[in-house]
């Protein structure tokens, strides 16, 4: 059975009994020689109490063995402390620093990037929570507000119809504008749009005459959008009216049809616009100077104003011509008509319409 050197050393120290009969006295108690020996190392270091030092001094005066031990201890300690230190090789520091320089930068620690210190992290978290709460509150409130206060459809479509911006190809561009503009309002009006779309589909299935009547029967509904459908259909069937004007919609049936289809397919909300902006015929009463060529004069006036004749009727009392023209040209139309007679009733041109339908009677 093996025992370690430390145990052996300590046992030899504890059981070293050269002079077991040597005692140090402390009052009535005595310290054995072994106990005194164990204090010698601390005695060299000065790490004993004054009383213990007195015991050791008293014992040493009468114990040559302990005096020899103390002398050996002091010498060995002196020798140990005087051991020369080894010098580090010149390459040691440079190699240490080379190893350290190979280490990645300390500040690039992933954890340090991910986690701020607590005194920074807590305020940031509090601020974030506050922002989330405030944002959620306002977002929720806005949605509820929009749902509860769904504005009249006509009001929403008004900004889309600026007469001053009406282009020559008014139908196409207007359809594009109408198709794009209402997108932001689609979510909040989806329910209403659905209803209107269903109504529009029903309208689409009807014949041309009934379609026109259903569209025109809607209040406050200018004819612009419905015109697209009407003219698209007119391209497939014989034109009921004069198609001579250069800018006749009938001359562009494919484009008009395509625009109308895209308009209906991409933006359901524009169906709402179609119904509400449906035809409102503006009536112009003309007192002709000469009844003989008044009809031709009216047609010429419409053509000069960039409009097109859509219908002509005659009864016993008066004659009527319906025409479509850009709203911006309405003033020019009236001026042209005044050359042929006196305009007795001047219609009020809606400011939010790109194109109008007029009924000129004399």
């Amino acid at each position, binding site marked *: 059975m093996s025992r370690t050197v430390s145990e*052996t*050393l300590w046992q030899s120290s504890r059981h*070293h009994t050269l002079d077991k009969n040597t005692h140090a006295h402390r009052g009535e108690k005595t310290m054995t020689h072994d106990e005194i020996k164990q204090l010698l190392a*601390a005695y060299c270091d000065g790490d004993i109490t004054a009383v213990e030092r007195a015991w050791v001094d008293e014992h040493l005066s009468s114990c040559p063995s302990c005096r*020899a031990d103390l002398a050996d201890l002091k010498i060995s300690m002196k020798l140990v402390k005087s051991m020369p230190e*080894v010098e580090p090789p010149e390459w040691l520091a440079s190699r240490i620093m080379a190893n350290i320089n190979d280490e990645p930068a300390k500040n690039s620690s992933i954890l340090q990037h991910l986690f701020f210190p607590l005194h920074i992290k807590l305020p940031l978290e509090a601020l974030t929570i506050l922002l989330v709460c405030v944002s959620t509150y306002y977002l929720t409130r806005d949605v509820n507000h929009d749902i509860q206060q769904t504005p009249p459809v006509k009001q929403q479509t008004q900004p889309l119809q600026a007469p001053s911006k009406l282009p020559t190809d008014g139908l196409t561009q207007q359809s594009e504008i109408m198709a794009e503009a209402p997108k932001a309002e689609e979510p909040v009006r989806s329910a209403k749009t659905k209803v209107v779309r269903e109504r529009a589909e029903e309208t689409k299935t009807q014949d041309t005459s009934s379609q026109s009547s259903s569209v025109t029967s809607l209040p406050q509904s200018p004819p612009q959008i419905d015109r697209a459908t009407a003219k698209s259909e007119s391209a497939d069937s014989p034109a009921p009216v004069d198609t001579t004007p250069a800018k006749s919609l009938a001359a562009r049936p494919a484009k008009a049809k395509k625009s109308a289809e895209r308009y209906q397919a991409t933006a359901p909300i524009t169906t709402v616009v179609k119904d509400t902006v449906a035809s409102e015929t503006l009536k112009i009463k003309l007192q002709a100077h000469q009844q003989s060529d008044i009809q031709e004069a009216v047609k010429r006036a419409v053509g000069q104003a960039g409009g097109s004749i859509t219908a002509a009727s005659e009864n016993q009392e008066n004659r009527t011509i319906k025409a479509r023209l850009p709203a911006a040209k309405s003033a020019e139309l009236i001026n042209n008509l005044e050359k042929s007679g006196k305009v007795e009733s001047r219609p009020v041109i809606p400011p939010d319409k790109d194109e109008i339908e007029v009924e000129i009677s004399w």
Partner: protein
Amino acid sequence: MSAQTNDTIDDARLVSSCRKGDRNAFEQLVNRYQKMMLNIAFRITGNFDDACDITQEAFLNAWRKITDYRGEARFSTWVAAIVVNLSRNRLQQLHTQAGHEAYSLDDTSCEQSGFCRPSAVSNLQSALEKVEQEQLRDAIRNCLKRLPAEFREVMVLRDMHGFSYDEVGDTLGIKEGTVKSRLFRARDGVKDCLRNALAE
């Protein structure tokens, strides 16, 4: 203000820079303490090459964990603890490689090791004085090497590098009473070892 206090303050300043990634500051600490750490490792392991390797690894570990150093102890004490641990690991490796060649009471080499029961007291004081210096150093190195590791560690830190009891305790992770106990036993062991070695 003492030189040691100045060094401690300067160490704290350098360590603070090291925490920010200042390698130049750490190089100053390396230059200041590499010799001490090398000697501690050398006295514990008894092998110069191992001591150099341990010193390198100790400083590398210190750099990696510099943010863990709280400044409660001196920087040298903190690094010395790393050196002691690495030295222990190295000794453990050597011990394992040597096939558990532990000292035993039945070991016939006991007589040669000098850690056996001391012989009768002789007039060693005069004998020690007559031994030449180099022979003494060899004998001391041999005696230190034969001390149990836990005793040797205490003696190296306290008697050879002047660590206080507190610092030795911090370095080794033991209480002050244990430090003293081990120290005094180590001194007795070295004394007896030298006595026997020189008596021969």
